[in-house]
């Protein structure tokens, strides 16, 4: 038995993740590919605040109160923390279905659709579920090969399905979803406060300066620059904060608002709203912190030897060590969606099928999903 030390560089799961994200710090940081606008955001915030701390704060601390720069520093730190948290965290990406799961779903769809005549378009892949006595349609994602959970949507920029998808924000360089929405909201809120704060004290500084000298003094150019930046930022950021406050009070996402999912007479009412503004706000802002299901830093195994330690929860070794034999058969499940009411439109889960029907054993047909996919309605990306 040779005692050769094989020092192999471990491959972490983030390196093999599909989708168009970029990862930094060995998988700890996750962002979208285009980061240019994010750098601009950083530059504007850090630049304006640096000018404020360098030129305004000494004057204000002496002439008014030293608490002013202290509060400004705290606010600035909070803004940066929220921005970095929003930008660097996993927004709630749903991992793509592994082949067995994808096949299982395909079988389910085929079983529900029955016989489709050749040349005829198969029906769209939709599942109806009942949530709080409202019918909600779950769409099938052809990229991720899953039925998207309610409120999830596929981001075409990041090429991922994101849970409770709000929107893709280029200013933070990431999607905004379930896991980072509250950080995004706190970022816009604190940035609004910071902008108003700097704007206000810039005006105060200019006013005091004029009264001090009683001559139209040469207002430092940087003050003018700060005022300009703050003025234009104010309108957009405060407006955005107001918009998101409205959305939170109704427990809606930007995506749902834009698509008009819950508005209009004949549409379904929002089944997720608690019909109480305080409760809605509490759920969004003070709810539990959801964990990432991506396991970016888990170690991928090359072979079936003993698993290397990983940061994630136990048994992250399942990915590669399942001995899927060549003759794996997936039986066509006859499990309809039991929550579909009978009067719902015929979809994947319509009707109740007998669970005692004999099992159908179909061989794996990896080409069939590919054959079906181009023929049906193209997945709409949001």
């Amino acid at each position, binding site marked *: 038995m040779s005692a050769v030390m094989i020092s192999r560089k471990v491959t972490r799961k983030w390196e093999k993740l599909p989708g168009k994200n970029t990862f930094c710090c060995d998988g700890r940081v996750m962002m979208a590919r285009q980061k240019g606008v994010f750098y601009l955001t950083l530059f504007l915030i850090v630049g304006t605040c640096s000018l404020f701390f360098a030129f305004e704060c000494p004057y204000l601390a002496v002439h008014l109160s030293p608490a002013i720069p202290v509060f400004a520093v705290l606010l600035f730190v909070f803004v940066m*923390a*929220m921005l970095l*948290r929003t930008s660097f965290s996993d927004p709630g990406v*749903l*991992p793509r*279905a*592994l082949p*067995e*799961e994808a096949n*299982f779903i395909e079988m389910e769809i085929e079983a529900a659709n029955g016989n489709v005549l050749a040349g005829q378009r198969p029906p769209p892949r939709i599942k109806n*579920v*009942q*949530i*709080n006595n409202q019918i*909600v349609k*779950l769409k099938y994602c052809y990229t991720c090969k*899953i039925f998207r*959970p*309610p*409120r999830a949507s596929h981001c075409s920029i990041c090429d991922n399905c994101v849970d409770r998808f709000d929107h893709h924000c280029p200013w933070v360089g990431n999607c905004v979803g379930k896991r980072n929405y509250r950080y995004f909201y*706190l970022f816009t809120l604190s940035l609004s406060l910071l902008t108003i704060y700097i704007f206000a004290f810039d005006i105060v500084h200019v006013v005091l300066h004029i009264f001090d000298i009683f001559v139209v003094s040469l207002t430092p150019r940087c003050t003018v620059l700060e005022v300009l930046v703050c003025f234009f930022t104010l309108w957009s950021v405060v407006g955005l904060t107001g918009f998101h406050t409205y959305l939170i009070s109704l427990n809606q996402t930007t995506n749902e608002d834009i698509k008009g999912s819950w508005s209009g007479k004949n549409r379904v009412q929002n*089944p*997720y709203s608690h019909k109480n503004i305080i409760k809605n706000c*509490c*759920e969004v*802002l*003070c*709810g*539990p*912190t*959801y*964990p990432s*299901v991506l*396991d970016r830093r888990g170690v991928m195994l090359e072979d*079936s*030897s*003993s698993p290397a330690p990983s940061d994630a*929860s*136990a*048994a*992250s070794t*399942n*990915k590669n*060590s*399942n*001995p*899927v*034999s060549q003759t*794996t*058969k*997936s*039986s066509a*499940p006859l*499990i309809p969606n*039991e*929550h579909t009411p009978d009067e719902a439109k015929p979809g994947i889960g319509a009707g109740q099928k007998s*669970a*005692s*029907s004999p*099992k159908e054993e179909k061989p794996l047909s990896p080409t069939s999903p590919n054959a079906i996919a181009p023929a049906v309605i193209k997945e709409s990306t949001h």
Partner: protein
Amino acid sequence: MVIRAEFAPWIHQFHNLQELRHSASLATKVFIQRDYSDGTICKFQTKFPAELDSRIERSLFEETVKTLNCYYAEAEKIGGQSYLEGCLACATAYIIFLCMETRYEKILKKISMYIQEQNEKIYAPRGLILTDPIERGMRVIEISIFEDSGSTSSSSSGSSPTSSTAQ
């Protein structure tokens, strides 16, 4: 049955599941889907899949899924503790999450232990293995069904005292 030298005795329990995976051949997989009737909270359907009819008692399966649902409900409960955690974290600009484990993560660990325990005691002796939903994006509970070889060597190996017909 060969006990591999690299597995220390104290992880013998985990070794049983590995043995099952490697010695028995995988017949099929069943996926227990999410139940969205109560909204977007994590909850799995307790409907008994037909494929497990001959492998495990309905009550045991339902018990497992119901317990898992309880764990997830507890993790996602919006109440005093979650408010406290949220407000405290907000006051520290969420920096505290870099060093502290959230309540959800603590419960996920409990869930992982529970699934491990259920696999060892109930499912592995019947030639089934549950996969933790977190590894499948919290979308499904994957149950791997291994072929019933007929002999007890592949299903109840090692020091596990349960026979395949017990429980």
